[in-house]
């Protein structure tokens, strides 16, 4: 009986997830409760959305048989054969909603081409890209402070992305947006 209980406990321990939180949140004194604008791979995006704080979920790795995990960011390359350009979609996820930033990019865009955006400010005016919230499109600006991405056969994609953005749509306004993320194969889908 005792050994059965021990086996049961071990099984439960294996099934129940242990988690690792990969998000580090440092509060910005001047824009509470947003996170600081940094370039450390803190895995957080925050902004004011219609005057209220929007903060992404924590990036968590779950270890266990019922592991699901959570991530605050996804970057996807969407290729369209019938169009002159492809699309890069950057999506940030909070607990209840998401904000998308969509950029038009050249055909045969590679992971390494992301590095060309580093240090650049881009205006998304609806033709070369747009922001999207709650089904509504809007225009705005994004500054990529740092993009450093590399793909290695052994370890896959590794890198970092950070920057600022602001956007306006028919029913939404985003101000003081700042993001700071580490990149890997789970985040970048190319």
């Amino acid at each position, binding site marked *: 009986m005792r050994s059965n209980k021990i086996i049961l406990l071990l099984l439960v321990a294996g099934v129940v997830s242990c988690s690792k939180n990969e998000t580090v949140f440092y509060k910005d004194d001047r824009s509470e409760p947003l996170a600081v*604008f940094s370039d450390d791979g803190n895995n957080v995006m925050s902004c004011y959305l219609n005057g209220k704080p929007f903060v992404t979920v924590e990036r968590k790795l779950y270890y266990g048989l019922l592991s699901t995990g959570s991530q605050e960011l996804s970057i996807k390359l969407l290729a369209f054969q019938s169009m002159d350009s492809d699309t890069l979609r950057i999506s940030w996820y909070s607990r209840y909603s998401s904000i998308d930033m969509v950029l038009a990019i050249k055909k045969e865009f590679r992971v390494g081409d992301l590095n060309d955006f580093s240090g650049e400010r881009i205006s998304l005016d609806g033709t070369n890209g747009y922001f999207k919230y709650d089904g509504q499109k809007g225009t705005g600006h994004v500054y990529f402070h740092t993009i450093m991405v590399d793909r290695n056969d052994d370890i896959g994609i590794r890198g970092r992305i950070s920057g600022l953005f602001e956007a306006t749509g028919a029913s939404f306004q985003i101000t003081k947006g700042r993001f700071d993320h580490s990149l890997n194969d789970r985040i970048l889908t190319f």
Partner: protein
Amino acid sequence: MYKQLFLAYLCLISVLNSHVLCAQVAIEPYIGYSIDLNNKDKLSLFNAGLQVPVINKPFYQMLVMAEGGFPLDSGTGESTAYTPNPLLPLTAKVESRTKLNARTFGLLHRWKPVEWGSGNSLSVFIKLAFTNQHIKVVYKEFNEVNYTIFNPRSTLNYSGLIGGGGIQFNRVLGAGTFFAQLNAAYPLLEPREKNYHFKLIVPLSINTGYAINLTKKKTNEKQ
């Protein structure tokens, strides 16, 4: 938890203070200078404090201490702010000033292992105290609507336990004792909120003071 620990501390001190009524009463005011060892920003303090022995034996003393640290050097810094708006310059320089304040209240345990000459001695001591460290950051005015500071300095406020120790040179001078001490203290607890720029203060202090005996020893007199 801090309130309960502090109340326990006060009870302990008030029990120990009962010894003062029976023992020789002395006070040890001092002033000094502290420099922070744990941050790149050069932060320093002017110290003013008071130590009062509550257990006073020839080789060992326990003292209650209270100290205030007042900002000496205001650290200045320059940060860069950025904007995503292409109609504005990409960067703007922003200046900041940083001031450190500290208040400490706790217990010292002091031992006097070495004596020489007429009235010279060397003591060693350890310290356990409650402290409040406050680093205030003030930025000069800038276009905050459009610009966001990169890697900003944030105000730090820490209240908690510190532990430390040091050495003290004593010399009998007139009716009292001159002393000079060198000590350092280290925060024992983690702050509740992480601070992006500053680590908790680790002060290295040089203090000098004068121990004054307030009561005379009772002498047995036959009348």
